[in-house]
């Protein structure tokens, strides 16, 4: 996209957002005055997703799978139950399947129809995950999409894309980075990025964390 087009698009979005902002305010007023919503419940919902639910939860799951073989087995056998052991359950994570990256297979997750995403372990999805470019292309040209994230895999690594068209949510277990053998579970969790659990990234090498 040329620069001027990008700026034009941005301005256009900006003016629409103001209109939207007014509409949301009007709606909130109406819903509150009609007694359909409790403002304290709205605050609680926002607080929950801004401070309690996010990719750190998923990182703990992955770090435990890397350091505890019995947990890894439970996670691969019944991810919903294994993730619930760590206290992460509920909305948009009612049925979770964990898929493990290996030197032979790299997994990626998308929802081409909407933007289904495993909220209890990753939080709310980033804009690119919900965007038309990602949703349209990852099923057709996953290697090209990976390259846009700076990830180049060997040509003989098979790529498996999981399109979450039902209520099953997928969590990618990235490969444990080389040089992480001596790290404790907490330190391992620092290597697990959000993108590595979607499959658009890899876990960080320890050298990039411990400067």
């Amino acid at each position, binding site marked *: *996209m040329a620069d001027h087009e990008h700026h034009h698009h941005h301005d256009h*979005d900006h003016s629409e*957002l103001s209109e*939207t*902002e007014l*509409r949301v*305010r*009007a*709606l909130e*007023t*109406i*819903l509150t*005055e*009609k*007694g*359909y*919503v*409790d403002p304290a*419940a*709205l*605050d*609680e*919902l*926002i607080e929950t*997703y*801004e401070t309690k639910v996010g990719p750190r939860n998923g990182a703990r799951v992955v770090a435990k799978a890397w350091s505890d073989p019995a947990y890894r087995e439970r996670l691969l056998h019944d991810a919903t139950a294994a993730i619930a052991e760590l206290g992460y*359950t*509920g*909305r*948009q994570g*009612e*049925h979770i399947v964990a898929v493990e990256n290996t030197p032979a297979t790299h997994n990626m997750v998308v929802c*081409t*129809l*909407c933007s289904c995403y495993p909220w209890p372990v990753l939080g*709310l999805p*980033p*804009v*690119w995950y919900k*965007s*038309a*470019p*990602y949703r*349209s*292309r990852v*099923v*057709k*040209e*996953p*290697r090209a999409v990976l390259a846009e*994230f700076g990830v180049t895999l060997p040509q*003989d690594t*098979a*790529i498996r894309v*999981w*399109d*979450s*068209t*039902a209520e099953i949510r997928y969590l990618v277990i990235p490969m444990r980075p080389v040089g992480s053998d001596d790290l404790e579970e907490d330190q391992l969790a620092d290597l697990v990025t959000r*993108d590595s659990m979607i499959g658009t990234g890899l876990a960080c090498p320890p050298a990039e964390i411990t400067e």
Partner: protein
Amino acid sequence: MNGAHDMGGMDGFGPVMPESDEPLFHAAWERRAFALTLAMGRPGGWNIDMSRFARENRAPIDYLSKSYYQLWLAGLETLMAERGLVTADEIDAGRPLHPAKHVSVLSAADVAPMLTRGAPTEREAAVPARFGVGDRVRAKELHPRTHIRLPRYVRGRVGTIELVHGAHVFPDSHAHGGGEQPQWLYTVAFEARELWGDDADPTSRVSVDAWDSYLEPA
């Protein structure tokens, strides 16, 4: 419904643009729209399939010109209008014009239990599974004007059953008040070449989760 939301395989949207240090919400209104949508689930009484259909069932140009949370907002307005909870004239006026309905309201104390519980969709199966892991199946050519969760890019294509998930609520009926009508749900893996032709990456595969009635033996 063959709508603009069914994007798998469509060309022309350009590159993926990751944003470094992306905020959880990009504007204050997104935070409110998110919370309002979640909070209205209880008084509204709709289910997730109704919500999805309300967001997706709009003209392609409208769907594609709205951001993610604008679609949530539009879906919410549709669902509320259909039930007479909030009507278009009220939103235009910015204040209530009609009496409120008696509904069950989500309290702050209910939020954590609601989120923790979620809405599991697995149900007891009334019949044995028709397919097992390794079976070859063809995704049917289905083009209803109503809600469906079988993406267009797999219709007519042959794949292999990879996972069997038990019986799950059927979105096609659930979205339109037809009840849960649970069916067996499978993960079906398709070779990229089966979906996209000989030029596709021979090492790549794509899977979708498909209900029993979307599939036939191949």
